[in-house]
């Protein structure tokens, strides 16, 4: 629910991990996710004086910025190239080897599968599992709550079909 405007640092500390995870699922690799996470919070920091809690929850506001940044990133640099690199499991330069290993072992395969979905399906999975309600997801994606649910269920089916059978 919209409420009081928290200090920006509270917002930052509370959401930086979630925004990163969302972007990781949208962009397919650690380096791009960090880069775009930085862009998101720079934009949010600059725009925070104009943010009105009456109009959007902090979560909805931040994920709107993150969604736009992810879309911009895809448009700018070409999604195919990045996805090929991610699917080929080519570690990007400067990636932390420890994080890469843990990420890949635990969640990397699943997140990369999400990143490989078509745009709308990828977004709905990412937003929903970042903690947004279907109402918020629908508002961000420009559709109704029910339409967001339907899109999400279709995305789950598509994701299931994209995962290897042996996946745990």
């Amino acid at each position, binding site marked *: 629910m919209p409420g009081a405007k928290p200090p920006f640092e*509270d917002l930052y500390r509370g959401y930086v991990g979630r925004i990163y995870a*969302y972007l990781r*699922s949208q962009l397919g690799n650690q380096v791009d996710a960090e880069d775009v996470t930085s862009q998101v919070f720079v934009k949010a920091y600059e725009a925070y004086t104009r943010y009105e809690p009456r109009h959007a929850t902090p979560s909805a506001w931040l994920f709107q910025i993150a969604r736009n940044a992810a879309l911009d990133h895809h448009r700018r640099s070409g999604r195919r190239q990045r996805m090929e690199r991610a699917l080929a499991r080519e570690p990007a330069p400067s990636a932390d080897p420890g994080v890469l290993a843990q990420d890949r072992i635990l969640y990397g395969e699943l997140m990369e599968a999400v990143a490989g979905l078509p745009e709308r399906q990828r977004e709905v999975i990412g937003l929903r*599992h*970042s903690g947004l309600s279907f109402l918020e997801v629908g508002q961000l994606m420009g559709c109704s709550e029910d339409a967001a649910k339907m899109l999400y269920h279709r995305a789950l089916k598509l994701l299931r079909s994209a995962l290897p059978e042996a996946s745990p």
Partner: protein
Amino acid sequence: MSERDGPDPELERRLDAAFRGTRPRRGFEDELWARLQAQRPWWRRIGDGLGGVRWGGVATGLTAVLVVGLLVVTVVRLGGARGGGAGMSSAAVPATRAAPGGAADSAGLPFGRLPAPRAASVSGLVAGGQPAAAGQPAASQGAVPAPQPATLPVFRYGPPSGPADGTILEVGSLPGGLESAAYPTRSVSDALAGASRSGAVAGHPSAVLTQARLVYVAVVSGGQGFLEPAYLCTGTAPGAGGSVPVQVLVPALAPAALG
């Protein structure tokens, strides 16, 4: 997700775990926060810091040139026997920075622990206008707690190009383009209480502090200069010819931030 109405709850659980467990590398969060702090103009950084204060309709732009009208009705009893004014310019005893609760960890302080400013300390704070008995530690319940920002920016500079040690600067007159970092703060009442524990300084037998406002004080140590936030508390004390004005400068930073 709390709702489990999807067609594939097992996959949803895996997704939940993946999104919860996927986090940036260690250090990324603090690095990004430092970058955010550093790239902002100083007036906006201060505005942000003070924007955390929940003062209702106080606009952030106005808080950047804040004169904190904090009502700090605190009777100050200075335990020392020395005479002279209690003004900050007369202070010769740096405040002792003993952090309550033991030694603090300097991790997470971008510039490390900061040198303490040379400032007048307040001793013998007593509540409700009742002077404390000589030699007794004072209480600070007389101070009215006021909301404070959780952090305030500290600015770093090279001493040859910046203000001299001890210079007091108004928030609105800070130089631009300085490297900055957010540091944790403490409340006015805590600051006054801490000052009271740090030892007596020359001053009036008693004083009533009625206002505190945020200023910055230049502290030069070890070849580095810092502009550190402080509360400049003002009030009056009984004098021979009536009330005389007094002022006391106390650091606004948490004791753990100061060396």
